[in-house]
């Protein structure tokens, strides 16, 4: 069901610009990996290469032993974009169904997932009738409605307020508890990364590369109390040190 990922010596150039260089990473099936780092560190580019939206300039990406294109064509991928990728004329529930119709995969029940995301009563609304945060939650529902084996998220909750952000994080944590899927999660939010991830890949810019990989050794389910536990505090402090001190001195 869940797939493993093997990223070997991956580089990506845009003309003279080195967006990614020498990226090596192995992700176990069912693992939750967060990518964190300053703008321009190539985390979105890496995600797009795994999603077969871009091709690597060097190296190789294998998902469950197959090339990204093959996995994409098997409709095993889901990507939650940072900006809503919803159709402006579709009602929320129809947009969620649209994913299922296009892929031919049933996945989650559209009404259930929308109500799980706090959108009960808003199913029939069109994008212009929804707030930015609501729209982004429709976007999340639409992106995963076909229940993909490999789930990628590109700063999915950045448009949400703090409470909704936590609720959404908890939904994903609970869903993954029920049935593990491999997740690649790009974020700017240190707490969120620690709360959700098995490992956190810290990336640094120009050229985009992996700076360090931090494991989060804490049992699941991680509830809200986890945020005040020593393990949580220690890990976030470590990450802050990396992002604010090590990288600044390197630059």
């Amino acid at each position, binding site marked *: 069901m869940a797939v493993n990922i093997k990223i070997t010596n991956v580089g990506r150039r845009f003309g003279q610009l080195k967006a990614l260089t020498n990226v090596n990473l192995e992700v176990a099936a069912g693992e939750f990996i967060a990518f964190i780092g300053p703008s321009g560190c190539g985390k979105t580019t890496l995600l797009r290469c795994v999603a077969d939206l871009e091709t690597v300039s060097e190296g190789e990406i294998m998902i469950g032993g197959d090339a990204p294109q093959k996995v994409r064509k098997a409709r095993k991928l889901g*990507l939650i974009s940072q900006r809503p990728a919803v159709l402006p004329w579709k009602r929320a529930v129809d947009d969620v169904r649209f994913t299922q119709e296009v892929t031919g995969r049933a996945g989650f029940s559209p009404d259930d997932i929308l109500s799980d995301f706090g959108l009960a009563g808003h199913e029939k609304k069109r994008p212009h009738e929804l707030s930015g945060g609501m729209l982004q939650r429709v976007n999340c529902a639409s992106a995963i409605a076909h229940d993909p084996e490999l789930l990628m998220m590109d700063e999915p909750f950045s448009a949400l307020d703090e409470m909704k952000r936590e609720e959404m994080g908890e939904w994903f944590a609970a869903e993954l508890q029920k049935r593990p899927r491999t997740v690649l999660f790009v974020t700017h939010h240190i707490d969120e990364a620690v709360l959700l991830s098995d490992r956190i890949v810290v990336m640094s810019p120009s050229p985009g590369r992996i700076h360090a990989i931090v494991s989060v050794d804490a049992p699941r389910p991680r509830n809200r109390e986890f945020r005040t536990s020593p393990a949580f505090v220690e890990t976030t402090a470590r990450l802050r040190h990396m992002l604010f001190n090590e990288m600044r001195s390197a630059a």
Partner: protein
Amino acid sequence: MRSADTINARVAFDSHRSRTMRRVWTTTLKIVLPIASIIGLWYFAIYASGLPSYVIPEPTAVLNSLIVNRALFFEHFVYTLQVALTGYVLANVIGIGLAILFVALPISRDAVMPAAISIRNVPYVIMVTVLALAMGDGFWTKVIIVTMAGFFPVLVNTYRGLKSVDPIILDRMRILDASLWNVFVRVRIPYSVPYMVAAQEITGSSSIVIAISVEWMISRSGLGYLINQSMMAYAGERVYAVALISAAFSFGAYSLIHFLGGRLNWAERKDR
């Protein structure tokens, strides 16, 4: 208490009725005033210019001609309608068809676009002459001219609309491995609808104007031919009658397109 309620209800009813009356009154004024002012200006032009009645007939003469010659007008109107409508439909088929081809197969754009631009820029008097020499002055000659004059706005607007899809939606389609058919039918074409609607208003009115003009030049039937005929016979009131019919026709076509377009157009619907 009860009587107060009754009074309140009465006041409400009265104010409701007076509001309705006011609305009827303003609507009536909106219709009557332009007509009255046009007729007024018309009479003023007659008396101020002192031109003969075959140049500027009285409104009553025009109205009389409309009634007396209604069978004749109707026959020629139907002919013009057929030319304009057939040309309009073909302009859309070709315009939308080419736009889809350009997006599906970008190289076709480089191949076809120069020719399309050239056709657009040939004065249509020349097209009429060449086509009349080649095909005679029949129905299809006129239809082709109408089509050639009308397809370009449809092509350009539809193409722009098909390309206006937010790239993030195309990423979504790619991630989901949506078929080319789904991308076109369920994403690109709906995105293009507001652009297509905008093009219809241009092509719709140009179809009527061009149809009448071509008939004026080469035809033996249609409203354009009727203008020509009436002019030769110094029947000014008939020329004006045809002008009224064409104006009503254009206005009707425009309103219909606008109404249908508004229903199809998701981008406009959301403003309501």
